[in-house]
């Protein structure tokens, strides 16, 4: 009770700790020059487009298909990651086995490995002559240069997001819930889906959202395996790149703006979930 009041008090209290002005100045100056001003340029450029032109660009068949490929593959990849990420987090938190630390360290590989390297390596692996691609080729499934390949690349970049979101929540989860459910005679599987999963859900959703957002914007790891076939495997960021190479800056800006707004929307949703989560856990 008292602690909460003190918190409110600090809001309008005197600034006892020195350094407010300096920190605020440095933060705003750097954020402004390096991020906000360049970012504003995209809105300035977009404002020069007439509304009709803008709509024409972003609703052209090629662009719409680009958005669809990016969104559908990123969504699918985020779903795959949600499933495997939860299992990975579970195994890392609940079991002891040799090589556990190595496995835990490996999760972050997609953060550390340059995306271009991942891109060419995955392409090689999943092409119809590659180690894994050739196996699937025999049963008539092509992976590289199809949407399956794009999804696999997006799974690669998205794994750490889900694992790192779920892991800490699972670590903190009170075993008493499970034990109570077990005592009542629930099976392990039933307990997982009815008791544990709902507890993990907000974190899982946040991880899913981050992996999804990363997938939509991803370029380096996807561009090689996508193969850039119009209407089939052209992702939205690649379309922006193509337009830039053709010096069609206005078109590139329009496509980017829609993608940007999509990202912001997604980020807003993730933040809302996290705020809801905090309220929920406090109650």
């Amino acid at each position, binding site marked *: 009770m*008292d602690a909460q009041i003190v918190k409110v008090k600090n*809001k309008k209290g005197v600034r*006892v700790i020195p350094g407010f002005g300096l920190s605020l100045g440095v933060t705003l100056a750097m954020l402004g020059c390096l991020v906000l001003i360049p970012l504003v340029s995209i809105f300035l450029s977009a404002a020069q487009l007439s509304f009709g032109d803008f709509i024409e660009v972003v609703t052209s068949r090629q662009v719409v298909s680009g958005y669809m490929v990016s969104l559908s593959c990123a969504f699918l990849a985020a779903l795959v990651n949600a499933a495997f990420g939860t299992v990975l987090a579970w195994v890392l938190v609940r079991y002891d086995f040799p090589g556990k630390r190595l496995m835990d360290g490996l999760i972050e590989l997609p953060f550390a490995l340059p995306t271009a390297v991942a891109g060419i390596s995955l392409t090689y692996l999943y092409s119809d002559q590659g180690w894994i691609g050739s196996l699937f080729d025999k049963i008539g499934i092509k992976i590289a240069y199809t949407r399956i390949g794009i999804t696999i690349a997006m799974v690669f970049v998205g794994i750490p997001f889900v694992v790192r979101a779920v892991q800490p929540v699972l670590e903190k989860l009170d075993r008493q819930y499970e034990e109570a459910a077990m005592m009542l005679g629930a099976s392990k599987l039933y307990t997982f889906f009815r008791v544990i999963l709902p507890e993990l859900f907000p974190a899982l959703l946040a991880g899913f959202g981050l992996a999804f957002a990363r997938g939509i914007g991803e370029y380096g790891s996807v561009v090689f395996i996508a193969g850039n076939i119009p209407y089939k495997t052209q992702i939205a960021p690649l379309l922006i790149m193509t337009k830039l190479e053709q010096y069609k800056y206005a078109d590139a800006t329009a496509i980017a703006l829609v993608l940007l707004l999509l990202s912001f929307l997604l980020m807003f949703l993730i933040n809302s979930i996290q705020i809801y989560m905090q309220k929920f856990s406090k109650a």
Partner: protein
Amino acid sequence: MYVEMKHITKTFDGFQASRDVNFGVEKGHLAALLGPSGSGKTTILRMIAGLDRPDSGDILINGARVNDLPGSKRGIGFVFQNYALFRYMTVADNIAFGLEVQKKSKGEIKSRVEELLELISMKDLGKRYPHQLSGGQRQRVAFARALAPNPQLLLLDEPFAAIDAKVRRELRTWLREMIERVGVTSIFVTHDQEEAMEVADMVIITNQGRVEQIGSPEEICLHPQTDFVKDFIDAERFEALMAIH
């Protein structure tokens, strides 16, 4: 009067934390700010320390108005509720910090730290870190750290709140003795009437941002002036307490 609060008001986001607060504490006295949670007692302490600023009214220390003086220039020692010990410094470094900041000489700092470690009977624990201490020991370190620069006024925010009930009584007596020995004017905040009555020379009872009554523990118990004080103070318990003494 060494410390004086004159017509102090303070509002936080529409919540009135202080309404025309007036009181004074004489030099060398130990005063208790007593009241229920949310009665505004901590706000008063923080305003004296310069951690919060009153909306109106005057705060006087030793006759001078200190409203616009930063907390660090008011000659105050402050013991935080959870002690706020510097976690990455040893006990000795914690105590020395205030002196280092004042650029005292190495020799002076060393002798002062030793003196204070002696005072709090922790002579051999100077090299320990806060997490290696018990709750009671932490409180003693916080006390020594606040006293190190020789403050004229010592403020303590719920000094016993974080301590086990068993040890609390012991520490109370200890703190009372220490403050008497050092002779520093002190004000502490508490919600525990037994604590206030047993330790303080004078008790200031607060309720909903107002001062309800000021007086010695006896005065307040025997002659409660408002209905709130009557309700809040458990006279029977106090009589039993006096009988023990």
